[in-house]
């Protein structure tokens, strides 16, 4: 089973630990997609007891084209290499090939060295800030931002889970998400507008697309005020 730790479209923090327990009771191994979670909350793969955990570098302040794939040794040992090349081999003769030990078995050829170093620095930086502090501050921003959106005319928040990360996905009555996105962009506010590569979720909520403001530790209340002002401008233009 593969499941996201935090929904990119809604901000919902899935009860990963409980889901993993349930899957394991049925003998099903679990991969957690933590692209949204790793930079925003402290993740302990042993405590979660997941079989695999993955996340991408560019969502954790790191470079693009690099990420992390954690797998439990017992699974990785059973898996064959997916790619051939330098370093994944311990010895080769005409008769027999012996693969290298973990993790080299899966790291064939010249790796993305610069990316690895960049991601390492980014993760050290995040750890230095303290992910618990990051999460606490982002929770404050989420509360403030939620109130800001609730006060904005015609705004409907999509995704209101009790356990939620600092993602504000919303629609504006009678105005398509892309039009909202363009007006906010013009006001200097970077949001994403669209289906967030989550079309079934959009369908579930009966909307073609949403506007999404994703908050991080470097955002401020003043920026959320600017979002509120931008949304009033949307109303002014669209009437």
């Amino acid at each position, binding site marked *: 089973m593969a499941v996201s730790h935090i929904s990119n479209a809604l901000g919902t923090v899935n009860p990963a630990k409980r889901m993993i327990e349930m899957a394991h009771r049925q003998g099903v191994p679990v991969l957690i997609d933590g692209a949204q979670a790793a930079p925003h909350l402290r993740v302990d793969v042993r405590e979660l007891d997941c079989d695999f955990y993955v996340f991408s570098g560019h969502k954790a302040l790191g470079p693009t084209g690099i990420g992390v794939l954690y797998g439990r040794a017992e699974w990785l040992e059973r898996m064959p290499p997916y790619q051939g090349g330098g370093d994944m081999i311990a010895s080769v003769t005409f008769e027999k090939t012996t693969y290298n030990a973990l993790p080299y078995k899966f790291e064939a050829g010249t790796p993305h060295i610069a990316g690895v170093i960049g991601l390492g620095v980014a993760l050290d930086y995040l750890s230095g800030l303290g992910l618990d502090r990051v999460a606490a501050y982002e929770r404050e921003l989420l509360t403030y931002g939620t109130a800001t959106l609730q006060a904005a005319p015609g705004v409907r928040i999509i995704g209101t889970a009790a356990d939620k990360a600092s993602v504000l996905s919303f629609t504006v009555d009678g*105005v*398509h*998400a*892309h*039009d909202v996105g*363009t*007006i906010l962009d*013009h006001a200097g506010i970077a949001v994403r*507008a*669209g*289906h967030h590569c989550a*079309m079934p979720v*959009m369908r579930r909520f009966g909307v*073609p*697309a949403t506007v999404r403001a994703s908050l991080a530790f470097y955002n401020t209340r003043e920026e959320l005020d600017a979002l509120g002002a931008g949304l009033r401008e949307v109303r002014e*233009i*669209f*009437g």
Partner: protein
Amino acid sequence: MSELRELYQEVILDHNRKPRNFGRLDGANRTAEGYNPLCGDQVRVDLDIEAGVIRDIRFEGSGCAISKAAASMMTASLKGKTVGEADQLFGRFHGMLTAAGNGSAAAELGKLAVFSGVCEFPSRIKCATLPWHTVRAALAGKDEPVSTE
């Protein structure tokens, strides 16, 4: 602000609120569908063509204000035109949005010139051109849905 007003002109907002020629066309002999997979905009254009003339045209679909207004105004401007004229108009419209500052093309486009402001918003150009690509596919008798990508 002025750039935004240039994009969201009153005419565009009006066509977005009250799209003209909206819905299916009974007795259409040409149809095509267009889709922008990046943003989810969808449009379907039905045409009734007789002796090389667009006798009637209707559209339906969902999308942003720019794509809806573009489709609405396109249907209004194509009704009664010959297939050749429609093709020419497509070329001018496309040219206005893709070749920056092409004022002469805008002048020849009449009401459609209100879309010239879209130029300043590169991410929105495909919203305005999707219905036009779709109608072109319908005129060419293509069966496959048109995609902006």
